[in-house]
């Protein structure tokens, strides 16, 4: 019973995700030219969405105490600084994450 429930839920989540991913391609397939407006949005959206995703990752940060926001703020700053300095994606991610982990585990406890 629990297995059936698990399988159904996983199936539902997978199906809705699949639908969302395929919908734009089904609506604007080869036969129907995507309107110029849609292409315009597609051109600009990647930049806007990346900004939105950063806020999405930081959505549970609160400003009631330094321990709630300072590690994330320092982490983001270090990632940005490392990336401007070396332009090495792995280094930026690893450096920022390690600093963040040290901060939340050892400094702001």
């Amino acid at each position, binding site marked *: 019973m629990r297995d059936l*429930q*698990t399988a159904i*839920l*996983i*199936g*539902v*989540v*997978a199906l*809705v*995700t699949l639908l*969302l*991913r*395929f919908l*734009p*391609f089904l609506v604007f397939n080869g036969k129907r030219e*995507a309107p*110029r*407006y*849609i*292409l*315009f*949005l*597609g*051109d*600009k*959206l*990647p*930049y*806007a*969405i*990346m*900004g*939105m*995703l*950063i*806020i*999405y*990752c*930081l*959505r*549970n940060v609160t400003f009631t105490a330094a321990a709630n926001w300072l*590690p*994330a703020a320092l*982490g*983001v700053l270090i*990632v*940005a600084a490392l*990336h401007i300095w070396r*332009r090495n*994606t*792995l280094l*930026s*991610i690893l450096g*920022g*994450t390690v600093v*963040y*982990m040290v*901060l*939340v*585990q050892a400094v702001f406890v």
Partner: protein
Amino acid sequence: MGKKWIVRRAFVKSLPVMAAYVILGMGFGILMDDRGYAPGWSILCSVLIYAGAMQYVTADLLATAASPLSAALMTLMVNARHLFYGISMVGKYREMGKAKPYLIFGLTDETYSLLCDGRDWPGDARDARLYCFLVTLFDQCYWVLGTALGAVLGTVLAFNSTGIDFSMTALFVTVFVEQWLTAKERRAALVGVGSAAACLLIFGPERFLIPAMALIVLLLSATYPKGGKGRA
């Protein structure tokens, strides 16, 4: 260009995602193990759903025995952003042939961030097809591998992994900075951060994503050149 060269290029491109996906995938595997689900279930999720944030939510949905309807609604909310990715890739994936269904299925946040810039692909159409397919496939392999590792070794691992989820934030910041430094689209980047931050303040962390996306579309549309020659 040789196939071997394309495989290497796709692999190198996917390396940053390897770090993030193996680690975040392990997190998901550990979480599912924690909730009492056998490794097979976690791996099934990573093969069939393949959507990072949503899989973490799915672990909660499963544990609380949520109804299929609320699971569907939740998925719609959390994954609605994938509509955006699709829209921006419709033109670029037009010539992808047999690889197309898998490319669409595997269009996660991270894979999108690696492939959304068409200028970065090999020049030849067939090379580009193989390149996109491999980047997508490598990414999912990392994710499934991480999941399996986490699910199987979850209980054995003894290190303190608190804060490891920051790697996801770090990845997005890196892509953002990279776009900021290379592209001319700084206004759109600011629209994204500003809209999301404003909606987060107004609607709170649980429900700001949909209004934020609406606001982004609205503000970007305001810059659409009317009747003219908008670049596509």
